């Protein structure tokens, strides 16, 4: 039998029908789990209704409002009428159709990519889709998980299937031990820096190697989350004991006999020895340092001990031009040491870095310290109500508050600023989110992507600083 990659296995086990004999052609793929949020679903529900169709399988769907929800004063509802309408539309659609939804004031509410795994609604071997590019996050559980557009949301609602094209496969191997204070976020940014934001276009990435096996599920999710920032629609990690232990006892996970049966199957979800990938990239874990982005694309990244690059040293005209534009937008001079960059705001949150482990890492840094005077606002936005609760049990909220951070309600928040949390024009932010695009965190706002520990360290120091010097 031909050796298969994990991706091959996941793909093959979901093909319902092939549109042609061409193995590279389009296939009809069965979808096991459909996650839904308020921004990309209203037009899909409307389309479904207009065509007189019903959802194919209700218990495959889990819905939550996360992008538009406020992170303070929830008792008063949502003040922005446009945001409110979008959230209410989701509530209404779910109620009408009988879809399971965690509403804004449900303590299980949170960012869709945090609550799926947390609930065990994401399980190994599944196909998982959501109208959101960071659906790649769920691949940490050896699922085939990818983002889709609204037409496809409607398609999955109506048919439980998607017409899809098989990707090429890429393996990213990270061997060795990560240094103290180095996290999955640094690995993710180092990967994007290495292969570029289009490096993974057309590929599904499997992350492998001893450094990856050494990561917790939270870390693996952070890494797969940012596969899309490397251009890959899907990222994934093979099943091992860490995966299985994480899932044990989760509300949507199987129990008893089915659990045993499931585990036996899940253990087969890894690439066969000797399976060949379209492309292999290798990184040495020991050499990865804390990463900080300096530009307006996640690939514009360097290490904390580095400098803002100099466009005059770039030969390629298109690249040089992009770099100049980015530096102008970011108001940074070439050759500025990263450690001299001073953020105005600190955002710890998003589907990349708002899980319990992320909050613990940040709290560890700020414990017993105060944020610098120059910081206008530092906020922690837990990824879900349950993460928030757990953090409060551990006293993390107190550590943050005593240091001068605000402790907020869960949601996407300032990752993309669809609610009231945003940067003012010209403000600079150390953010644990995943995108530093122009205007992402607010019009004319400036974003530097970092790990939670690095964001916390910058909050305390008032400028970027190597977290390894603080620990």
């Amino acid at each position, binding site marked *: 039998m031909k050796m298969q990659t994990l991706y091959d296995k996941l793909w093959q086990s979901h093909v*319902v029908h092939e*549109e*042609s004999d061409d193995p590279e*052609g*389009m296939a*009809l793929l*069965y979808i*096991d789990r459909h996650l839904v949020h308020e*921004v*990309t679903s209203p*037009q899909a529900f*409307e*389309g479904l209704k207009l065509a007189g169709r019903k959802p*194919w399988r209700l*218990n495959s769907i889990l819905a939550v409002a996360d*992008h538009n929800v406020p992170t303070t004063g929830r008792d008063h509802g949502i003040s922005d009428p*446009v*945001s409110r*309408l979008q959230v209410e539309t989701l509530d209404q659609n779910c109620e009408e159709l009988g879809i399971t939804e965690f509403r804004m004031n449900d303590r299980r509410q949170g960012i869709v990519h945090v609550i799926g795994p947390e609930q065990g609604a994401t*399980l190994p*071997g*599944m196909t998982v889709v959501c109208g*959101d*590019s960071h*659906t790649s996050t769920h691949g940490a559980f050896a699922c085939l998980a*990818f*983002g*889709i*557009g*609204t*037409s*496809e949301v*409607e*398609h999955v609602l*109506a*048919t439980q*299937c998607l*017409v899809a*094209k098989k990707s090429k496969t890429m393996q990213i191997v990270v061997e060795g031990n990560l240094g103290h204070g180095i996290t999955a976020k640094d690995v993710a940014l180092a990967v994007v820096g290495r292969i570029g934001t*289009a490096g993974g*276009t057309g590929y599904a990435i499997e992350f492998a190697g001893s450094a990856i096996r050494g990561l917790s599920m939270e870390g693996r999710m952070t890494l797969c989350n940012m596969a899309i920032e490397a*251009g*890959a*629609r899907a990222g994934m990690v093979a099943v091992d004991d860490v995966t299985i232990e994480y899932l044990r006892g989760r509300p*949507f*996970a*199987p129990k008893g006999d*089915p*659990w045993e049966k*499931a585990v036996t199957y899940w253990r087969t979800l890894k690439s066969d020895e000797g399976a060949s990938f379209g492309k292999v990239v290798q990184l040495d874990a020991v050499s990865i340092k804390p990463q900080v982005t300096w530009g307006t694309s996640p690939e514009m990244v360097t290490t904390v001990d580095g400098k803002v690059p100099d466009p005059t040293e770039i030969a390629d005209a*298109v*690249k040089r031009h*992009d770099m100049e534009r980015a530096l102008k937008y970011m108001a940074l001079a070439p050759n500025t040491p990263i450690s001299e960059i001073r953020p105005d705001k600190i955002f710890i949150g998003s589907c990349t870095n708002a899980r319990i482990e992320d909050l613990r890492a940040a709290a560890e840094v700020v414990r017993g310290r105060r944020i610098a005077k120059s910081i206008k606002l530092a906020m922690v936005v837990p990824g879900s109500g349950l993460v928030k609760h757990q953090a409060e049990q551990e006293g993390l909220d107190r550590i943050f508050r005593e240091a001068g951070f605000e402790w907020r309600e869960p949601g996407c928040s300032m990752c*993309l600023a*669809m609610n009231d949390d945003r940067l003012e024009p010209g403000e600079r932010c150390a953010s644990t989110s995943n*995108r530093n*695009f*122009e*205007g*992402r965190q607010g019009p004319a706002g400036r974003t530097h992507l970092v790990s939670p520990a690095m964001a916390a360290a910058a909050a305390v120091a008032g400028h970027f600083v190597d977290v390894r010097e603080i620990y």
Partner: protein
Amino acid sequence: MAPLDRANVDTDAIIPKQFLKSIKRSGFGQNLFDEWRYLDHGEPGIDPATRKLNPEFVLNLPRYRDARILLARANFGCGSSREHAPWALQDYGFEVIIAPSFADIFFNNCFKIGLLPIVLDTSQVDQLFREVEATEGYRLLVNLEQQSATTPAGESFPFEIDPFRKHSLLNGLDEIGLTLQHADKIRAFEEKRRVEQPWLFG
């Protein structure tokens, strides 16, 4: 054809998030490239006629006003999965986007709404940028049936497209309807799955 000379144009730039709050499918064209196209900041509900256009932005130059083809650089449409990005491009009046490469989800979304993304070699795209910028009223002829893009000088660039996608585009097929023709197959697949992996159906 209008040339947008930037690489890695992301979906936040194509349609900023404040406009994603709409629950409708139309009307996004007026906010296409909002932060580049206007000098003031846009919010939903503001009448575009009252806003200040950025005279330097390429789509605002009179010679490109009625363009129906957008010429772009590598990795166009990277970032989020928002279909609002192709909706905005289409609503604005574009029917074809040409670039050396596209982000996967964006590329896929385009086909779903009948917008045609065409991949050409970087050198061909470079040539088109040179020609369109040099010649006012430059017109490229795109023929989907024959899979070719032809310059005014008669030079023709062939492009690839998946046969299923081509068929759907040319015939404007309802993809959901097509899939539902396989409903029996889907049901049979589902039943088998229910037996083998019952935990997926809890």
